[in-house]
């Protein structure tokens, strides 16, 4: 069973998307803010990190930067799942090493799952 770390501050979305991931037979670890997310990334060693960008305590960009700097976490693929759609945000995230960038409202749940499977090469 693959493990996914889901860093998202919207509790409703945490639950909905967490339920969907569990339905797809993934093990889900949840973090409600950037700091906890970063800590869990190191301790849990997930196969994939799904990261929101607007987060309390530590912004998604900072989390991404720290993940890619750390030897232990730099190879974990990071899928950005956010509602920021400015080209400069997309560019910055991809430059920092994000694998995929998805804008939440532009995708159906099934499409996001497909993208996740693709990143995990399933």
């Amino acid at each position, binding site marked *: 069973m693959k493990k996914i770390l889901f860093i998202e*501050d*919207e509790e*409703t*979305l945490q*639950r*909905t*998307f967490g*339920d*969907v991931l569990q*339905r797809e037979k993934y093990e889900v670890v949840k973090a409600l803010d950037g700091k906890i997310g970063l800590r869990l990334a190191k301790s849990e060693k997930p196969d994939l990190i799904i990261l929101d960008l*607007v*987060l*309390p*305590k530590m912004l998604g960009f900072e989390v991404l930067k720290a993940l890619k700097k750390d030897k232990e976490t730099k190879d974990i693929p990071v899928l950005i799942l956010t*509602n*920021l*759609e*400015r080209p400069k945000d997309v560019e910055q995230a991809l430059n920092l090493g994000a694998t995929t960038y998805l804008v*939440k*409202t532009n995708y*159906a*749940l*099934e499409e996001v799952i497909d993208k996740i499977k693709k990143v995990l090469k399933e």
Partner: protein
Amino acid sequence: MSLKRFFHSLNFINQCREYGVPLWQCPQFLFLIMGVFIILTSSFSYLVGTRFVEDPSIVALIDLMITAILFIIAVIISKSFERLAEASQMKSEFIDIVSHQLRSPLTNLKWGIEFLTSDEFKMPDEKKEEYYDSLKENTARMVELVDDLLVVSRIEKGTLPVRKEKFNLENMIKDLIDRFGLMAEASNIKIEFHPDKNIPEIYSDPSQIKIVVENLIDNAIRYTQNKGYIGIWLRIKNKQLLFKIKDNGMGIPKSDQKHIFEKFFRARNISKKDTRGSGLGLYVCKSIIEKVGGKIWLKSKLDKGTEFYFTLPIK
């Protein structure tokens, strides 16, 4: 660093791109064009002068006058375009922020409904109930934000309607405290109301004043931790009503206080804890209170609490 900034200020194309306007609308670029134009007309008048006017000092004077006039015009034009560009940049920032704010509850609705209606998964009833509740909550969030945006747009266009009618502010506050009772109780917060005796009815716009009081109570509850205390006072002072709400919550950092009534501004300590607020509430409050002839201000100490005050004319 300052040398870098100086070179950056010379790079017109880059600056125009930052404004997000086409080159022909960009003030810096227009100024350059005007400069070239000035040089050309000056040379032209010089040529005309040397052919048709004999006294060289008169030619020089004419030349100087034309240059001065053109220069003034150029400055005026470029200034007005600068304002235009600033407004356009602010507008697109506004749209960015608003669409992001609307998208959060929208995503919750979209994915919540998709999950509830997916065939592959039979959800237990109590879990369904949870999903329905969150759909309701997120719809309410969107309604609230759209309402706030409408008020903001009316404020900016100067078309915020102000009705004047007699009403009792004391009763309105009591009703609102009742309505917020559950929310306060859930956070273990006590709300107490201390009105002066014989508070007169006032002549103002009850629907607008209600928005202000709602916003202030909502903020006080939201930014006060467990076992908090909120006090509300209503007094008569200098032919005005003075409203005061005090909480023992997280407070507002001093450097943020002067910006707290600005549109979309959120204090740093709050936005680090909770990314949901729109930053419109207090902007709306200030606009309404000033529109009906009152004043609004605050006192706050970090980690100690915040006091918001507003006055309203009685007549």
